[in-house]
């Protein structure tokens, strides 16, 4: 054993390895940390979307991989009255259902914003239609609209108000309205609860000030509630329009696009062509044709209803 006195220990500055240097380099580190997320997006979002768009330009069927056919699918689509009908009904369905959902949802939110007994209980109950899986809703409405066993028809007949069953889904227009009613019933809670959340962020002092100024209830709604609600309204409406426009389950489970294709939405028509019909290419083309509508709807609600600077106390540009 050596007994020589040790020299004062000096910490050796370790030479940094190349790897560690690399990881200390910020741009690289950022890139690496983003990779998993980017990978997920690529695999589960970009690839399917890209594949869908690619398929739309081929004549792929379920039994056979396709050839590139250019715009042929789209050309056929534009000549196909069934597609035009689906475009019409998708827009009509989305438009009418959105107006009704927001009208009724806002009203419900305003009611729930008051002090009521059993407030939380009521709010929970309001959410029920939205919590129930869509397919169950659809099955319930399928029974309610059943041409032979509708409970509504039964009640009317038992009360002596009608002789025959009500035609809910047997002819085109009643079927269209019936589906919209089912969609509205399902969609109101989402709108109401989201708007209620928005309402609760509005500072009560604004209302107090308005009260002192002698405002009426309508004025308070028009000049305080509504403008303060607009930003959240924009977001909720964007989501609602997208969900409604791409709705599938309600329509497919209740009418399957019938009677005679009059209630096909673009989503149900795309599925019908693509999967049971086997024409993946045509189905994909129909699905792709939804994209412009969705982009337009999103841009509209974003720009028309988006947050304005004056809401943060600045002036508009």
């Amino acid at each position, binding site marked *: 054993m050596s007994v020589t006195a040790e020299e004062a220990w000096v910490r050796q500055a370790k030479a940094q390895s190349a790897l560690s240097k690399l990881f200390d380099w910020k741009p690289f580190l950022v890139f690496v940390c983003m990779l998993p997320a980017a990978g997920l997006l690529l695999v589960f979002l970009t690839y399917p979307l890209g594949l869908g768009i690619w398929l739309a330009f081929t004549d792929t069927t379920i*039994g056979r991989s396709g050839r590139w056919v250019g715009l042929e699918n789209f050309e056929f689509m534009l000549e196909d009255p069934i597609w035009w009908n689906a475009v019409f009904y998708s827009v009509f369905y989305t438009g009418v259902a959105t107006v009704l959902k927001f009208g009724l949802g806002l009203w419900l939110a305003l009611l729930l914003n008051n002090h009521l007994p059993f407030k939380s209980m009521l709010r929970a109950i309001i959410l029920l239609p939205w919590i129930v899986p869509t397919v169950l809703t659809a099955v319930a409405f399928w029974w309610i609209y059943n041409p032979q066993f509708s409970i509504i028809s039964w009640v009317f007949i038992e009360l002596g108000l009608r002789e025959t069953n009500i035609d809910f889904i047997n002819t*085109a227009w009643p079927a269209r309205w019936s589906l919209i009613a089912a969609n509205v019933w399902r969609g109101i809670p989402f709108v109401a609860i989201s708007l209620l959340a928005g309402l609760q962020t509005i500072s009560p002092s604004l209302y107090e000030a308005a009260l002192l100024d002698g405002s009426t209830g309508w004025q308070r709604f028009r000049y305080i509630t509504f403008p303060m609600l607009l930003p959240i309204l924009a977001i909720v409406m964007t989501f609602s329009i997208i969900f409604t426009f791409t709705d599938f389950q309600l329509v497919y489970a209740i009418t399957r696009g019938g009677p005679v294709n009059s209630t096909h939405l673009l989503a149900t028509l795309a599925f019908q062509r693509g999967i049971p019909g086997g024409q993946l290419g045509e189905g994909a083309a129909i699905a792709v044709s939804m994209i412009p509508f969705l982009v337009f709807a999103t841009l509209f609600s974003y720009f028309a209803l988006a947050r304005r600077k004056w809401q943060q106390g600045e002036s508009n540009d």
Partner: protein
Amino acid sequence: MANIITRRSILGAGAGMAALAAGGQALAQNRVQGDASVTAPRLAIENGATLRVLRPVRFVQPDEEVFRASAARFTQATGVQVRVDFVGWEDINQQTAVTANTGAGPDIIIGFNEAPHIYADKLIEVSDVAEYLGRKYGGWMFVGEKYGKRHNSNNWIGLPFGGTAGPLVWRKSAVNEVGYQSPPTDLPGFLEMCRRLRRANKPAGFALGNAVGDGNGFANWLMWSHGAGITDPAGAVSVNSPQTLAALNYLRELYPTFVDGGTISWGDISNNQAYAANSLFVTSNGVSLYFALKNDPATRAIADDTEHSVMPLGVADSWPSAPLTLNGMVFRHSRFPNAAKAFLLHMMEGEQYEPWLNANLGYWAHPLTAFKDAAVWTSDPKVAIFRDSMNNKFWNGYRGPLSEASGQANAEYVLVQMFASVAAGQATPEAAMREAERRARRIFRR
């Protein structure tokens, strides 16, 4: 005696009882004798072979039990391990497509209808097995041969395993009440009966909604009983024809006699519900409706009052109905093609096939003539009509060749919607026919 029937039917409901118990003693006996002088093809089973088989799920529990037991006997006899998977009916076409395209997956799929004709170049021929079975068991029945052989050839690419058709289902009391012993077999007489039933408030009803089985079955009946067809024998679209027009005009008179509320939104289950609820008295359905009624004490009386008969023939010379057909195929990618063929052969030999047929209580009908003597066809007189299902002279896409397009026309309800739009008054018969022609041309363009 009543006790026995009750016991049998309750067991037959499929509560997991063995097929033999379900059918009683009579069904346990093998009655069909094949021609023993016919020698089976020599299939040298590959060493170490294993098989994967895919088939649609059962109607009744004993179907699966007997099928598995027969497969187990194959393993015992040959040492070939067989794995059988049962998949939902909606999925079998897609799974067949994926198997054919990827060249991987099951060795054997027992699919539906035209599947072997769509994937013909992905399959190995089974002519030796089919010809042997045909010679031994009195020949293939019409639909069996149609779905088995490649178009215009004697090469078998599919081995039809069974079929099921939807006859006229009617309440005896209602039909008698309006003055008939049984429904008239001619079209004008049938219309008149439906009118009388309507007046007696015991209406008929046939699905005109997007119902894969019932809707297409009814539309096909309307077409074929008037001599119309979606394509001609060469496969060219022929829907726009005077015969189709006659069918459309016939429906225009028939539809107002249908049940209150109409049938344009009907799915496959709707007529079953209405019939079981005593609001529908004449319809068309597979045997499942009858058994559902019979096995439920609450509707037993309806079952007792129910009869089956062939839909009115019109100008057709056989029952105008295309049976849904189980069609076995062996894929080229199978490493053990001989074992696969031997397996199908084994399953269709009388020792295996007859108990299976009996276990199915009439849900599936045989494609080989000799099995007409199987006990199931005398087990319940109301089931007897299904015995000859495979002797119909009709198939999906009649009169053209079996193809992907004929399946697609069915799946997209081209004919059903043509009829429905006329029944609903949305289109004139001429306009509806032109629209159907436009859609059919697109579908049959290849």
